[in-house]
C-alpha cells in the first residue's frame, strides 16, 4: 500500500520497510533511483536533516525477489506561519468579504477555516469558488454598534496557526476604484482636459450611499501630482494643464461619510488640444489663415449690461453684479 508521510524541514526521518524485520535485506529507491546503503540502518532508511528536494516517492523492495514491500510518499514541508487576513466591504451596505494567504509557503496542503462572530451570533462566511481563499458575508443588520470578530485558522499535517481581526461595520468600507476613466482634450482650449468616469460596478447603491472622488493628474515630465477632491458628479474639467504636454490622470473613490479611499484607478493619458501646425503654403493662403486665426483669438466683447441674463464669454471673468465677488467666483464654475 502507498502512504503519505509529512515531515518538517530539518527533521530526521526514519522509514521502516513495512512489516519487515530490522535485519531483512532490502533495497530502497527514491523516485525510482536506488539509494546508497550508507543511508540504511538495517532495513530502515535514515534521512537526516531533510530538505524540500527530498520529497518524493520512496519504495522498499525485498532483497532478492524485488518484491515491493512498502511505498511512501514523503512530503517535506513546514507548519503554517500566522496567516495574513484582510476583510473589506467594497459593496456596502450589502456585506463584506475576507481574503487570506500565508506569508510563506508550507509546501504541503493547507486547509483554512474561517469563523465570524457578531456579538453573540455566529455568522457563516460563504467561500467563493474564485478566487480561492476568499469568502463573503451578507449584512443582516445595518448600523451595528457591535464589532465583528473574524478568526482564520490554518491547519496542515505539521501544525496549525490562526489570526483574528476585530472591526466595526464602518471601518472596513473601501470601494473598488472608479471604472471607465476617460480623458479627452477640449477643442480650442489648449489648457483643458475633460475627465469622466463611472462608479465602480461593485458599489450597489450609489443613490443612497453616494461616493466622493479624488482626482490626481500630472504631466508625464513632472513628478508632482495635482489633486482635486470632488464631492459629487463623475466628471471634471482640468483647466490648468500645460499646453501640449501629455498628462497622466487617475481617480479614486470613497464613500461620502465612512471608510477609506479606494486604490487609484487605471491611469489614462491625454494631451490638451493644440492648434494645427501650419504647413508651408502660398502667400495668399498665408494671409488668409493669419487673419482667420487673429479673429478667433480676439477677446469677446465685454458686456457692461448688469442683467441676470448677461452673456459671459468663455475667457471673461467679469460679471457685473452688485451682489459681490461671491457671484463672480461661482459663475466661473458654470462657464
Amino acid at each position: 500500500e502507498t502512504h503519505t508521510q509529512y515531515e518538517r524541514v530539518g527533521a530526521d526521518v526514519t522509514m521502516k520497510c513495512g512489516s519487515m524485520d530490522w535485519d531483512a535485506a532490502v533495497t530502497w529507491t527514491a523516485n525510482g533511483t536506488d539509494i546508497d546503503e550508507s543511508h540504511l540502518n538495517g532495513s530502515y532508511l535514515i534521512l537526516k536533516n531533510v530538505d524540500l528536494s527530498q520529497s518524493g516517492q520512496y519504495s522498499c523492495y525485498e532483497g532478492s525477489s524485488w518484491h515491493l514491500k512498502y511505498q511512501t510518499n514523503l512530503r517535506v514541508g513546514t507548519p503554517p506561519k500566522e496567516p495574513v487576513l484582510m476583510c473589506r466591504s467594497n459593496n456596502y451596505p450589502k456585506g463584506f468579504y475576507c481574503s487570506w494567504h500565508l506569508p510563506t509557503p508550507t509546501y504541503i496542503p493547507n486547509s483554512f477555516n474561517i469563523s465570524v462572530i457578531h456579538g453573540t451570533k455566529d455568522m457563516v462566511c460563504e467561500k467563493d469558488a474564485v478566487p480561492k481563499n476568499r469568502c463573503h458575508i451578507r449584512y443582516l443588520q445595518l448600523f451595528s454598534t457591535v464589532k465583528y470578530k473574524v478568526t482564520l485558522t490554518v491547519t496542515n499535517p505539521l501544525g496549525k496557526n490562526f489570526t483574528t481581526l476585530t472591526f466595526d461595520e464602518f471601518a472596513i468600507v473601501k470601494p473598488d476604484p472608479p471604472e471607465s476613466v476617460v480623458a479627452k482634450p477640449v477643442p480650442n482650449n489648449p489648457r483643458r482636459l475633460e475627465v469622466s468616469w463611472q462608479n465602480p460596478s461593485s458599489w450597489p447603491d450609489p443613490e443612497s450611499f453616494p461616493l466622493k472622488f479624488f482626482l490626481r493628474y500630472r504631466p508625464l515630465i513632472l513628478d508632482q501630482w495635482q489633486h482635486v477632491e470632488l464631492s459629487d458628479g463623475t466628471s471634471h474639467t482640468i483647466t490648468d494643464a500645460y499646453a501640449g504636454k501629455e498628462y497622466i490622470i487617475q481617480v479614486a473613490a470613497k464613500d461620502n461619510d465612512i471608510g477609506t479611499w479606494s486604490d487609484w484607478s487605471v491611469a489614462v493619458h491625454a494631451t490638451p488640444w493644440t492648434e494645427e501646425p501650419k504647413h508651408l503654403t502660398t502667400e495668399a493662403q498665408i494671409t488668409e489663415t493669419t487673419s482667420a486665426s487673429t479673429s478667433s483669438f480676439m477677446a469677446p466683447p465685454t458686456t457692461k449690461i448688469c442683467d441676470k441674463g448677461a452673456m459671459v464669454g468663455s475667457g471673461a471673468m467679469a460679471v457685473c453684479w452688485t451682489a459681490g465677488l461671491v457671484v463672480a467666483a461661482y459663475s466661473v464654475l458654470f462657464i
Partner: protein
Amino acid sequence: SPTGDSWGIFTFLCAALCNLPALPALNCSEELGAGQSIQQTYDLTRYLEHQLRTLAGTYLNYLGPPFNEPDFNPPRLVRAEPRVPSATVDLDLWRGLTDNARLAANYRAYSRLLCYLRVLDGQVGTAELRHRLAHFCASLQGLVLSIGGVMSSLGYPLPAGPAAPPAGPPGAPAAPNDFLKKMDDFWLLKELQTWLWRSAKDFNRLKKKVPPAVVTLRLEARGF
C-alpha cells in the same frame, strides 16, 4: 455655451438670494427650503460626528481602562428596558422606511440621546468635560430642531418627544454599581456615534427624494 452660462448663474442666484421678493417667476419658498434644510441637517450630523470623536476620547479617558482601550469590545448586556435607542436596523426595513418614518426615527433617537447626555453632564467630575458636554449638547439640540424643521416643512407631525429632561433615565433602573454605570456611559457614546453615522445615510436618502418642486423650478427657469 452662452445659454449654459446664464442658466448656471441664474440657478446660483436663485439659491443664494431666494429670499428676496424682487426675483420674478420663482417659487423659491417651502420646497426649496426643505431641500436646503435636509442639506443643513446632513452637514450638522457630520459636524457632530467630528465633535463626538474628541468628546468621546476625553470622556473614555475619564472613565479609565478598559473603556479607553481601542480594542475594548464588551458584550452587550441586555437590560430590562433598552436604555438608549439603537441605530441598528434590518437592512431591508431601513431601505423601506417612508420619509416620515425615517425622519421620526432620527428625531426620537436624538431627543432621547440628548436627555441622557444632559444627565451625564450633571454627573461628570472635571470642568473640561462639563464644558465639552455642554457644548455638544447645545449642538445636538440644534440637530433635533433642524430635523424638526425638515419634518414641519414637509408637512409631517413631530413625534411626541420625551418630557422635560428627567433626573434619571426614565423607566430603566439605575445601574447598581460604578462599573456598570460606566458601561452604560460607554454604550451611550457608542450608540450616539452609530446614530450619527446612520443619519448621514438617512439624510443622503432623503436628499435624493426632495419633492419634485425642484424640477418645477428648473422648467420655469428655462422658459424665462
